[in-house]
């Protein structure tokens, strides 16, 4: 319980600071910390495989892509510190977010959610693999297609068209 | 096939790795402070002044302060002041000597031109290369006391060259003595026979030093 609270607080703090940072690189790196915190949560919950997958995908890959995007879309160091959005917008966002937060907290706290205090469901990687390629083969194939399409799409979208781009 | 060039390269480095343990043609490193490099005779570093006598270095400098080296030195690192008096040189002729002779070795570029232009074989190239000093101005500015080194040292570092120089100087000295003797004899003869023809130039003049040629080719 204490571990969970600690992980939750670190993750939330990292995410909140990341969202309020003016420096994009700092935001991205703090989000990496936050993702790592979520991985810590998975580890705490006993979902080893998911935790490592989370680190591998988010810390190893998504963060790289984000940083790449940040570096590719900046013009100078000065521009990394982006202009703050309008106060009105921020206030509106906070009101909306607060409302959602309140609703969710109310819902969670008012529902009697008795947790089954059983030990975490034991699931070996082998069993997971068997499930993935047994019951969920179709989903795996779909995900594979999705990833391939996403990869190709990303390449096509981001690649420069030299005719259009010519000054 | 892709990779064959890389494998060949790896083989060559492996060969060199093995060769470095047994092949002196591959492992050429000298462990400097312990193993002293064997300097070739021709090796030159900074100039020094030759003295005839080790016990009286300042009295027997070959240099006659003619200032040719000072004039010819490309970076102009030599500074000479002539003496007021004269001292007999090796051949016994009274000559000027350098009251001040200084070489700024921080400027000197070891080109050996001073040695080549010196008509008196008075300046030669040294082989001491460990000349670090803690003061860049005074530490590297050598005066005549520091520059003077005996002829025996010259023999030690450039034996062929020194031998040649000594032979030539001995010949000059002998010629000068003979000339003096002949002159004395002529004087005596002249005194004996008053109406006499002028003494013929019997003594051969000192062999002109081939200016463009260095004293000797050093042996490898």
């Amino acid at each position, binding site marked *: 319980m204490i571990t969970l609270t600690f992980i939750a607080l670190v993750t939330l703090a990292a995410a909140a600071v990341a969202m309020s940072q003016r420096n994009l690189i700092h935001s991205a790196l703090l989000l990496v910390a936050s993702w790592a915190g*979520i991985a810590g949560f998975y580890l705490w919950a006993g*979902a080893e495989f998911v935790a490592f997958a989370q680190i591998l995908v988010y810390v190893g890959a998504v963060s790289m892509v*984000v940083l790449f995007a940040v570096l590719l879309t900046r013009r100078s160091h000065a521009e990394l510190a982006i202009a703050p959005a309008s106060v009105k917008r921020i206030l509106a*966002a906070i009101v909306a977010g607060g409302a959602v937060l309140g609703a969710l907290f109310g819902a969670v706290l008012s529902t009697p959610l008795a947790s089954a205090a059983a030990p975490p469901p034991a699931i070996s990687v082998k069993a997971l693999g068997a*499930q993935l390629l047994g019951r969920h083969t179709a989903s795996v194939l779909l995900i594979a297609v999705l990833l391939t399409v996403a990869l190709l799409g990303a390449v096509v979208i981001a690649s420069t068209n030299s005719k259009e781009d010519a000054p | 096939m892709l990779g064959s060039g890389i494998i060949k390269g790896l083989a060559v480095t492996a060969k060199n790795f093995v060769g470095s343990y047994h092949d002196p043609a591959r492992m050429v490193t000298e462990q400097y402070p312990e193993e002293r490099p064997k300097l070739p005779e021709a090796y030159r570093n900074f100039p020094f002044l030759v003295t005839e006598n080790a016990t009286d270095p300042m009295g027997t400098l070959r240099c006659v302060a003619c200032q040719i080296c000072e004039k010819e030195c490309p970076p102009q690192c030599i500074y000479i002041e002539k003496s007021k008096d004269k001292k007999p040189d090796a051949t016994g002729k009274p000559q000027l000597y350098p009251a001040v002779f200084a070489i700024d070795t921080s400027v000197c570029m070891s080109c050996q031109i001073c040695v080549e232009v010196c008509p008196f074989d008075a300046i030669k190239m040294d082989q001491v290369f460990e000349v670090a000093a803690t003061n860049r101005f005074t530490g590297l500015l050598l005066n005549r006391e520091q520059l003077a080194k005996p002829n025996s040292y010259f023999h030690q570092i450039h034996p062929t060259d020194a031998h040649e120089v000594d032979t030539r100087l001995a010949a000059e000295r002998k010629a000068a003595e003979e000339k003096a003797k002949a002159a004395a004899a002529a004087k005596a003869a002249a005194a004996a026979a008053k109406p006499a023809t002028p003494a013929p130039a019997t003594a051969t003049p000192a062999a002109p030093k081939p200016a463009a040629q260095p004293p000797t080719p050093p042996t490898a």
Partner: protein
Amino acid sequence: MSLSPLQLCLLFSSALFCVGLIGALARSNTILVLLGVELMLNAANINFIAFWRYGPAPSPATGVLFVIFAIAVAAAEAAVGLALVIAVYRHRRSIQLQDANSLKG
């Protein structure tokens, strides 16, 4: 008031969701908006794991499998989203959301 671990997990996930939401709404930088959306997705994943861990599980692997698929989709989303950001930047020389206001290239 005593909270069960499951409730705590859910509170954590809803808080994270709201942080992501506020970020996505408040910031005008496209990359940050995308990152906010990523955070919201992650918050959802936390719920899956929380229910897998503490809920009555019909199959011991369901929650984990959900998260694995979600992570895969999120990775694809991030890649395409950031590619779009770069493409927009190429045209508009800006990554502010307000600047990308027309559908024409």
